[in-house]
C-alpha cells in the first residue's frame, strides 16, 4: 500500500441499478480515464514532470466544472495539498498547486465542501507564512474563494489566533493581498465576537486607507468590511467617526461613495455604513449626512429601477435607520413617493413574467418573499410614531388585505414582518376603529397566535393588546373567540415579553368589562397563577398584573364579589408587595388597589379588620413621595365615606388610630392635589 493519501476509486453498482446506469457509467469511465492521467502525473518521481503535470492540470480545469469534480473524486486534492506543503517542493510548484486548488474552489459548492474536508484551510493559512508574494497571493486567492462560499464555516478563520494578525500584516503587500484579505474579512465577520477580534487587531486603521485605493475592487471590499464591522457595534462606530482618510472624515468619504454616479453596490454599502454608525449613536439622526444623503440614497434603492436584491436590502436598511426617529420617518414618508413605491414590492412574481420568461419567473419567485417581508418591515418602521403616516399607509392600495394574507403566509419571515407592520399600525386609534375592524384582522391574528414561534408570538400578542383596548370594535368578537385561555397560557411562558403581553392584554380586556368577563378571567387565570405573577421578577409583568387587579376591582358589586371569594389571598399579596422592595410605581399601583378595595361595601371590612394594613396606610400617608401619600389618603377617604353603612364606626376607629391628626397635617401640604384630598376626607368627619 502506498501511503501518499491516494484513495482507490471504486465503482460499485448493484445488479438492479446496473442497467440503468450503464450509459452513465461509460461516459464516466471515459472522462475519468483522461482525468486519471492528470492525477497520475502528480505522482511522477521527476519533480519537473510533476510541475508540468500541475500546469497541464491547471489549463485543463479552467472553466470546466465536470473536470474539476472528476479530479476531486480521483483524489487530486490531498496530493496537491501535500505538494503545496512540502518544503522540498519548488516555489514554482507550490504556487501552481495553490492556483489549481483555487480553480477547483471556483466550481460548485460540493467542490468547496470536498476541499474544506481535506483541510485545505489550515494548509493554505500555513502557506501564508512563506515570504514569496506570488505564492502568498495564490494562497489568498484560493482562501478567498473558499471563505466566501456559504458552505464554509467562517469560524475556521478564527481557530488559530495568530491568523488574523498575520493577515493584517500582509494586507498592504499588494493590490491583490488588499483585495483578497478585505474580501475574506467582509465575509467572515458575522458575530460581535468576530467584530471584536478584527477591531482589536486594528482592522479600522489598516483598512481605512484602502477606501481611497485606485482599485475599484479594493475600495468596494474595504467598504464592505466597514459595514460588517459597524453593524450594531457601538465601539466600532464610535471609533469610525474619528477616523481620517487622507485628511477627510470617514463619514464624508462614505457620503462621496453614495454619489449617484457611483456603482449601486457602492452607494448601498456606504449607506449601510452610515446607517449602522447612526444607529450606534455615533452620528446624530439630524446630521446632514443622514437626512440629506443616507436617507434619500436608501429610498432610491427601493425604486423599481433597482434589482430585486438591492430593493430588499435598501428597504431593510432604511427601516432600520429610521426606526427610532420620527423626523426621519416623516421625511421618508414623503420622499420620492416611498409609500406607494413599496406597494410594488407585492407584485412579484408579476403576471407578465409568468408568460414571457421562465427564467425571470424563477428569479421573481425566489425574491417574492424577501420583497414582501422587506416592505412590511419598512411600513412598520414608517408608521411606528406618526398618525398621518399610518393613515397614508392604510390608504395604500390593498394594504390591509396584503397584511391579512401576509399573516398566514408559509414563510415565517413574511408572517413576522406582517405582524410587525400590523402592530405598528395598531397604535392608531383611528385605524383600530376603522380599517382594522373592516378587514377583521383579528381573525388571522388569532390564528397566528395558536401556533407560532416566540418572536412572532411577541409581536402578535402585543398587537392583540391594542385590539383589546376598550374603544376597539374588535374587542367583542375577540372575546367571543376564546382568547382568554390563550392569553392565560401566555402568562405562563418562559419569555418575559410574552408574559407581559399576556397579562397586558388581560388587563386591557378587564377594563370596564362585564362581571361575566371578569369572573372568567379570574377563573381561567387561577389565583395561584395570579399570585405567581405578582412575584414575577420582571417589573413590567408585576405592573401589568397589578393593573389587571385594579381593573378587576372596579365598581362596587364586582369588588365585593371578587373580594368575597379571593379576599384573603389578595390582601396577602398586597401586604407582601407593600413590605417588599419595590419601585414607587409598583407601590402606588398597589395602594390604588387597596383604595379600590376600600370602595367596596363588604370588602372594606377586610381592611378595617386588619390593623397591620391600617398601620401601613398610615405609614404611606406620611411618606416622602407625594404619589404614595395621595394613594394612601384616597384609601382612607374611601373608608370613612359618610353615606355608607357603618361609616361612623370606621371614622371613630380611624380617629382613635390617629388618622385625623395626619389628615389635618396633610391639609397643610404644599401639593394642591394632596391638600384637596385631605380636606375632602376631613369633611367626612365634620358632616
Amino acid at each position: 500500500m502506498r501511503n501518499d493519501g491516494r484513495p482507490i476509486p471504486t465503482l460499485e453498482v448493484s445488479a438492479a441499478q446496473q442497467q440503468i446506469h450503464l450509459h452513465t457509467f461509460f461516459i464516466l469511465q471515459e472522462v475519468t480515464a483522461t482525468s486519471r492521467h492528470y492525477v497520475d502525473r502528480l505522482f511522477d518521481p521527476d519533480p519537473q514532470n510533476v510541475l508540468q503535470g500541475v500546469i497541464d492540470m491547471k489549463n485543463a480545469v479552467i472553466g470546466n466544472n465536470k473536470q474539476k469534480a472528476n479530479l476531486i473524486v480521483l483524489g487530486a486534492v490531498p496530493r496537491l495539498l501535500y505538494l503545496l506543503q512540502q518544503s522540498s517542493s519548488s516555489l514554482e510548484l507550490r504556487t501552481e498547486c495553490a492556483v489549481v486548488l483555487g480553480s477547483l474552489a471556483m466550481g460548485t459548492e460540493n467542490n468547496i465542501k470536498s476541499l474544506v474536508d481535506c483541510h485545505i484551510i489550515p494548509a493554505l493559512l500555513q502557506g501564508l507564512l512563506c515570504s514569496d508574494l506570488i505564492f502568498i497571493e495564490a494562497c489568498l486567492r484560493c482562501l478567498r474563494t473558499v471563505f466566501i462560499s456559504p458552505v464554509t464555516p467562517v469560524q475556521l478563520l478564527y481557530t488559530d489566533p495568530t491568523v488574523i494578525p498575520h493577515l493584517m500584516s500582509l494586507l498592504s503587500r499588494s493590490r491583490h493581498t488588499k483585495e483578497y484579505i478585505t474580501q475574506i474579512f467582509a465575509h467572515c465577520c458575522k458575530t460581535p465576537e468576530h467584530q471584536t477580534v478584527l477591531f482589536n487587531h486594528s482592522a479600522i486603521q489598516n483598512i481605512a486607507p484602502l477606501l481611497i485605493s485606485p482599485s475599484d475592487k479594493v475600495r468596494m471590499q474595504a467598504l464592505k468590511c466597514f459595514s460588517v464591522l459597524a453593524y450594531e457595534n457601538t465601539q466600532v462606530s464610535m471609533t469610525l467617526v474619528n477616523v481620517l482618510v487622507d485628511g477627510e472624515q470617514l463619514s464624508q468619504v462614505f457620503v462621496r461613495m453614495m454619489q449617484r454616479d457611483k456603482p449601486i453596490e457602492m452607494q448601498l454599502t456606504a449607506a449601510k455604513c452610515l446607517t449602522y454608525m447612526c444607529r450606534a449613536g455615533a452620528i446624530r439622526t439630524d446630521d446632514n449626512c443622514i437626512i440629506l444623503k443616507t436617507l434619500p440614497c436608501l429610498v432610491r434603492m427601493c425604486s423599481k429601477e433597482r434589482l430585486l436584491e438591492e430593493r430588499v436590502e435598501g428597504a431593510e436598511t432604511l427601516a432600520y435607520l429610521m426606526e427610532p426617529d420620527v423626523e426621519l420617518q416623516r421625511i421618508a414618508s414623503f420622499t420620492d413617493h416611498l409609500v406607494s413605491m413599496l406597494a410594488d414590492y407585492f407584485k412579484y412574481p408579476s403576471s407578465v413574467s409568468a408568460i414571457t420568461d421562465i427564467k425571470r419567473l424563477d428569479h421573481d419567485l425566489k425574491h417574492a418573499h424577501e420583497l414582501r417581508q422587506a416592505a412590511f418591515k419598512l411600513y412598520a418602521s414608517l408608521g411606528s410614531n406618526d398618525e398621518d403616516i399610518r393613515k397614508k399607509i392604510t390608504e395604500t392600495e390593498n394594504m390591509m388585505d396584503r397584511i391579512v394574507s401576509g399573516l398566514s403566509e408559509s414563510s415565517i419571515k413574511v408572517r413576522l414582518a406582517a405582524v410587525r407592520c400590523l402592530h405598528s399600525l395598531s397604535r392608531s386609534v383611528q385605524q383600530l376603529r376603522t380599517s382594522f375592524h373592516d378587514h377583521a384582522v383579528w381573525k388571522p391574528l388569532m390564528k397566528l397566535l395558536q401556533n407560532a414561534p416566540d418572536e412572532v408570538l411577541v409581536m402578535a400578542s402585543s398587537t392583540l393588546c391594542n385590539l383589546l383596548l376598550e374603544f376597539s370594535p374588535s374587542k367583542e368578537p375577540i372575546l367571543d373567540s376564546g382568547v382568554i385561555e390563550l392569553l392565560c397560557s401566555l402568562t405562563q411562558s418562559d419569555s418575559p415579553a410574552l408574559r407581559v403581553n399576556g397579562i397586558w392584554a388581560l388587563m386591557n380586556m378587564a377594563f370596564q368589562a362585564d362581571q361575566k368577563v371578569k369572573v372568567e378571567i379570574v377563573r381561567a387565570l387561577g389565583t395561584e397563577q395570579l399570585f405567581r405573577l405578582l412575584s414575577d421578577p420582571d417589573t413590567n409583568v408585576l405592573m401589568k398584573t397589578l393593573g389587571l387587579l385594579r381593573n378587576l376591582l372596579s365598581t362596587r358589586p364586582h369588588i365585593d364579589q371578587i373580594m368575597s371569594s379571593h379576599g384573603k389571598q389578595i390582601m396577602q399579596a398586597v401586604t407582601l408587595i407593600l413590605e417588599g422592595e419595590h419601585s414607587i410605581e409598583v407601590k402606588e399601583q398597589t395602594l390604588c388597589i387597596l383604595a379600590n378595595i376600600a370602595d367596596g361595601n363588604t370588602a372594606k371590612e377586610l381592611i378595617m379588620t386588619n390593623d397591620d394594613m391600617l398601620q401601613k396606610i398610615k405609614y404611606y400617608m406620611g411618606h416622602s413621595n407625594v404619589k404614595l401619600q395621595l394613594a394612601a389618603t384616597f384609601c382612607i377617604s374611601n373608608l370613612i365615606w359618610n353615606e355608607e353603612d357603618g361609616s361612623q364606626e370606621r371614622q371613630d376607629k380611624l380617629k382613635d388610630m390617629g388618622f385625623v391628626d395626619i389628615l389635618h397635617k396633610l391639609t397643610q401640604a404644599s401639593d394642591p392635589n394632596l391638600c384637596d384630598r385631605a380636606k375632602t376626607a376631613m369633611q367626612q368627619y365634620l358632616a
Partner: protein
Amino acid sequence: MSGPSSGCGFLMSVVVHGDLALNEQEKDLNQRLRRLYPAVNEEETPLPRSWSPKDKFSYIGLSQNNLRVHYKGHGKTPKDAASVRATHPIPAACGVYYFEVKIISKGRDGYVKYMGIGLSAQGVNMNRLPGWDKHSYGYHGDDGHSFCSSGTGQPYGPTFTTGDVIGCCVNLINNTCFYTKNGHSLGIAFTDLPPNLYPTVGLQTPGEVVDANFGQHPFVFDIEDYMREWRTKIQAQIDRFPIGEREGEWQAMIQKMVASYLVHHSYCATAEVFAKSTDQAVHEELASIKNRQKIQKLVLSGRMGEAIETTQQLYPSLLELNPDLLFMLKVRQFIEMVNGTDSEVRCLGGRSPKSQDSYPGSPRLFNSPVHKVEMEVDHFSNGVSESSSNGFLNGSSTHGIDLEECDGDMVDSAQSKRQLCGGSQAAIERMIQFGRELQSMSEHLRRERGKNSANKKMLKDAFSLLAYSDPWISPVGYQLDSIRREPVCSTLNSAILETHNLPKQPPLALAVGQAAQCLSLMARTGSGSCAFASVDDYLH
C-alpha cells in the same frame, strides 16, 4: 425742504452699495449657471435669471432685482389669482434644469394660503395659478396637490408654508418634473411635458411673498448629484450603443480614420508605422507627406517667408491660383516680421548692443512711413479713422521713452525678444517695405476680385500692431501668439491636399465636427440628452 434731499443722498449710497453686491451676485450666478448647464449656448437660448416684469399679472409685484414676488390683489376668489413667468424659457440643452423658491411669508391670516410653484408655456393666462390651464403645471402649498393642466389636483406631496424651500426640477431628457421640499425629493409630479416651459409662480393671498433662486445662491437640494446620475446614464447609453455585426468593419474604419488623420497632419513616421501595423495602404506618397510636413514645420515655427517660398517651389501653381491664400500667408509673414521670427528679418536682425544704440532716433525714422500706411488704410475704411492714428501717435512717443529706459539698463534677452522685428533697424525697414508691398497687393486684389471684408480685416488687424509701443500687450497682440500659426498652417495644408484631390479635412476632424453639429441640432430640437454628451468628454 431738507428732508427729500438728504433722503436722496441716502438712496444713492444704497444704490451704489447695491450695485457692488449685485455685481458679486451676478458673478456667482454666471459661474453657477455655467457649471450647471455647460451645454447651453446662451446667445441662442438665454437661461432664466429672474422673473419677467413684462410677463406677469397686475396683482404681482416684483422687487430685489425681480427675484422677490409679492401679491398685491384682493385674494378673495380664484379670480384674484396672479402669476409671473421667468424672463426666458428653459433651454433643452440644460438636460436637467432646476430652480428653487423660498416662501418668505405665507400671507395674511384668515385666508387659505393658495400658492403654486411650477411651469407654464408662453401665453398661458397669468390671472391664474400654475397648473390650472393647458400647458401649465403646478404644486400647491395649501393642500400639497399637483395640478397638471387641470382645475383639480392630485395628491402629491406635503403642504408648504413660511420658511420652506420648494424646488422644481425639469428633466428635459425624459420630459418629467419633480419637486423638492427643503432638499428632499418628492418624486415625479408630471410626465410628457411640452418643450419651452417657463419657471412660474402664482399667488392668491394678500401678504404672500416668495423669493426665487435661479442659481444666485447654492441650492438646498443637491441637484448636481441628480445630474451626475443622468450624465452616467447617458454616457452608458452611448458606450453601449450597438454597432452590431459590422464590428470588424468598425475596427477597420477607426484604424482608417486614425491613419488618415496622421497622414493629413504629415506625421509621416507615425503614419507609416501605424499603417504597417494595421495593414493599411497610405493613399499619398511618402515624399509628398514629407513635403507637407516641411512646409508645416516652417509655418509653425514662424518662418513664413521660407514657407511661402517652399510652397511655391513644390507646388508651383498653388498660390498663383489662390491669391487669397497667398495674401493670408503674406499677412502672417508681416506679423512674423513684427514678431522678429520671420526668416527675412532674422537674417537682418543682429541683436548686438550697436543696433540697440540706434534706437533713440528710430521712432521718428519709422514714424512717417508707417503713418502713411495707416492713412492709406483709412482710405478704404472709414471705421478706423482718427482714433487709430491717435493711438499710433501716442504709442510711438511712449515707445521712445520705453526704449530710453531700456537703454539705461542692461538689456536682457527676454526683453530683446520682445523688441519690434527682433530689434534690428534694417529689419524694421524691411518690415515697413513689406507692409507697403502688402498694401499694394491688397489694392490689387480688390481691383481684380472685388471687395473682401475678411482680407480687409486681416490686414487692418496686422497693421494695427504698429500702433502700439508694445504690440505684445496691445489689444491686437493676440496675433503674435504662436498658436495663431495653427489655423494658417492647416489652411495651407488643406489647400495643398485639395490640389492632390485629397480631402481638405481629415475624416476624423469631420466626424468630430459632425458630432458637435448634431449636439447643437439636438439642443435646438429639444433633445435634452445633448447636455451630457459633450464631444470634448470623449476626446480625452
